[in-house]
């Protein structure tokens, strides 16, 4: 296995010689000690990468405090006991580090990159961020952050794709925590107090509830030792895996976010999905390569190449709910010109229903299998991709296949009959939500005419 991208940067600017990119075999390890789960990989390069995944997300938001998980995650970067926000920023900049946080329904991820030469000092700072955040000492930064996040959340609703996706998820998961956006709501944020952030942190930010990944030039055993020495102050607690709820929709429902003056009709069509680590995921991925994962797939061929109705049409198990151990959704996303919505939206549904019934042909299987085998080198050709695959194995159970021969062997073992049975058995188009954004008066009859649709509702998506 070759690593490359870090080495290329190095060759341009740092201390390496003139040749581009060095590589080492990467054999990541997963170690559990003192309550920690640490994924460690060694690679040659001038940058080190960190991923800290905390098993909490917006599903942990208590009561109507929608946004508490998101606010808590961002508040981590607003200072520590020792450093104010400005001092923390300056310290990070000085050592050449970049940190970002993201929150979804059931996980929170802190991602970081740092110059390898500053790895030690960065880990000291990261330890302080994870164990002694500034909100235990100062409320004002939480209030400032609330205002910033509130403004950002309002901007989310300017994105038509976001509106379609949110309408779909809040319908598919009505009555569950996923009815609310993972970044929270303006109303929810307004109610949150600094003490709520502190309580949330104490409940969920324990080492047992985290999975840590490090890709660096250090030996794996050295990373383990460094982690043991520096992160003792992180809370001890219990692991609290947070499962996604099951979708609640029975039958086929359509929802419209009423927006005037739209020139496209952003559209999601979703049915219940399959967990990322599920034994059936590989055959389902092969079949989806044929159906909608690629530019040469059926959806693009019919809706774009043949008809010219839309610029794009794709399908994925990751849209809207991400890569999760639990079944999320299987979704189509397309955005036909508004004038073609009456043709494109029903056609997308028709293609999905037909796909569930008849799946793929032998020629299509051969094509998809070749394509997936041949493109395998791109799946793990960088440090960040490798780290992501290793973390995925721990978090979702999806096996990290390092070897392209093993990947080919697994693909070759799949049969057409087996794949088509899997599609038929694991995908159910009886329970479906279609979510569109546009003029409700125009779209209502279009959606009502789609076979099996029992209700068409106009819904609101509030920031």
């Amino acid at each position, binding site marked *: 296995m070759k690593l490359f991208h870090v080495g290329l940067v190095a*060759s341009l*600017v740092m201390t390496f010689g003139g040749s*581009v990119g*060095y590589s080492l075999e990467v054999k990541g390890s997963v170690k559990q000690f003192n309550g920690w789960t640490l994924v460690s990989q060694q690679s040659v390069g001038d940058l080190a990468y960190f991923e800290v995944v905390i098993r909490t997300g917006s599903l942990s938001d208590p009561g109507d405090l929608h946004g508490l998980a998101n606010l808590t995650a961002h508040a981590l970067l607003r200072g520590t006991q020792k450093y104010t926000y400005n001092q923390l920023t300056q310290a990070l900049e000085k050592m050449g580090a970049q940190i970002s946080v993201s929150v979804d329904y059931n996980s929170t991820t802190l991602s970081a990159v740092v*110059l390898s030469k500053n790895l030690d000092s960065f880990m000291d700072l990261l330890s302080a961020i994870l164990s002694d955040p500034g909100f235990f000492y100062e409320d004002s930064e939480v209030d400032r952050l609330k205002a910033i996040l509130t403004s950002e959340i309002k*901007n989310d609703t300017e994105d038509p794709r976001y509106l379609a996706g949110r309408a779909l998820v809040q319908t598919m998961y009505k009555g569950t925590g996923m009815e609310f956006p993972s970044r929270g709501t303006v109303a929810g944020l307004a109610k949150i107090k600094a003490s709520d952030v502190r309580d949330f942190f104490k409940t969920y930010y324990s080492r047992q509830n985290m999975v840590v990944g490090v890709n660096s030039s250090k030996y794996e055993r050295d990373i383990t030792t460094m982690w043991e020495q520096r992160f003792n102050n992180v809370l001890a607690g219990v692991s609290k895996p947070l499962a996604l709820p099951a979708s609640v929709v029975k039958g086929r429902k359509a929802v419209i976010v009423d927006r005037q003056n739209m*020139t496209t009709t952003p559209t999601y069509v979703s049915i219940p999905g399959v967990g990322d680590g599920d034994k059936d995921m590989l055959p389902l991925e092969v079949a989806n390569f044929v159906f909608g994962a690629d530019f040469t797939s059926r959806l693009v061929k019919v809706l774009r190449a043949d008809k*010219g109705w839309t610029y794009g049409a794709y399908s994925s198990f990751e849209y809207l709910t991400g890569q999760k151990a639990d079944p999320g959704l299987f979704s189509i996303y397309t955005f036909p010109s508004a004038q073609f919505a009456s043709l494109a939206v029903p056609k997308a549904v028709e293609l999905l229903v037909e796909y569930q019934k008849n799946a793929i042909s032998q020629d299509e299987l051969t094509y998809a299998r070749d394509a997936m085998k041949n493109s395998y080198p791109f799946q793990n050709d960088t440090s960040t991709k490798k780290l992501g695959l290793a973390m995925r194995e721990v978090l979702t159970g999806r096996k990290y296949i390092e070897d392209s021969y093993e990947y080919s062997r697994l693909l070759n073992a799949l049969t057409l009959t087996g794949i088509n049975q899997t599609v038929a058995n694991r995908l159910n188009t009886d329970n479906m939500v279609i979510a569109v954004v546009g003029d409700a008066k125009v779209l209502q009859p279009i959606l009502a005419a789609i076979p099996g649709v029992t209700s068409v509702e106009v819904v609101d998506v509030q920031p």
Partner: protein
Amino acid sequence: MFTHSRFALGILGGIALVTSASAATGSKPNIQKFALPNGLRVFVIEDHSSKTFSYQTWFQVGSKDEKLDPALNRTGLAHLFEHMMFRGTAKHADGEFDKILTQNGVNGENATTWNDRTNYFQGMPSDKLELVMELESDRMVNLQIDQKLLDTERGAVLGELHTGLDEPSTVMSMKLYETAFTTHPYHFSTIGTEAEVQSFTKAEADYFYKTYYAPNNAVIIIAGDVDFFKLKKLVTKYYGNMVSQTIPRIQPPVEPQQTAERYLELQHAQIVQTKIMMGYHSPSILHADWPALNVALSMLTSGQGALLRKEWVETNLGSDMGGGLDSFTDPGLLELAVSVAEGHTVDELKSSLDSLLSGMTEASIEKEMDRAKNLFLLQFYQGAADISSLAFAMGEVMVATGNPMDYFDIATRVDAVKAADVHRVIKTYLIPENRTMIVGLPQAAAAPAPTQASN
């Protein structure tokens, strides 16, 4: 597709940072080049760390050129034509190009069109070099433009155009260039208007193809696990017989100096919070002031410590602040963008920006400059962190300067910027009379009709 992926090195989100400024003295990767007698230029970056390579074909024609060409005099065809390049040759029928590449493991296959250029690119496993070369050389000269397929692709392009029109930032960006440029063809949007896209004829597409898709108007950049000598033989085999063409090289009119601030309000149905997008006329990439403007931009917008973040975001005046600096062939814009927080006004943010800029010209800024330079360099290097990105960055610079190797000088040029340079460029360029402001308003709150003040 068309893209707005301008060379926006100044935009950074999150706490960012890195690398010492002295890093700019680092060495370059192993790059070799050659040219064929027909004018085709080829740049090769050998890198055997992954069993893959990136293959990029850059044509030096974009929406600016079609506007200048009296045989066309409009925009949108360069982009529509880019779509047509995927729709079949005499040898490979419609759809085969994508299918063959996909079955052979293509990664990141796409194309983009912009003001000054059009590019086509794909990543492939190492053993597929000849296959890619056969397909790419075939469509460079043997494309068959079918009327029915042209009409179908027209629909996809309109879908792309419509998608942009539903996005406030895209519409505001179009209006920014339309307002800031009164004479130069950067005034016109690359994707064109709906009327233009609807009206292009097959004859125009044929003319465009024959005129501009010639070996002497193309540069191929290949980066990755390839052997230079084998590659050179293959290039000669597949591209050597192509005939060069006379390329219209029409110089665009020089944009007159702006002497008063321009201001345009627009309403957009999707805007929730008032938005500001502003552009300052800025020199082209080879101009001596371009690096200092990049440093100034980085000081203003990069990282959590960005001056405009402190000025606007941390004070809750605004959110989603960012910026960018064009690296076009001709002078472009330095852009800043922000959403206005509820309860605050455009004038508040504008005043605070002008005060900040004024203060920057008088203050000691060395410390802040170091931070900004480091951030710029970090993003510069991260932007070329894999073979595909590096080839892309080199291609973009090649279009602007004529030489992709100029890409590697950018870091050195930025590293050499002094405080006096930053002071000078702020006083010269970042002044109200050189600024165009586009204000996007939620529809309900907007004035009855858009207003525009112009010099």
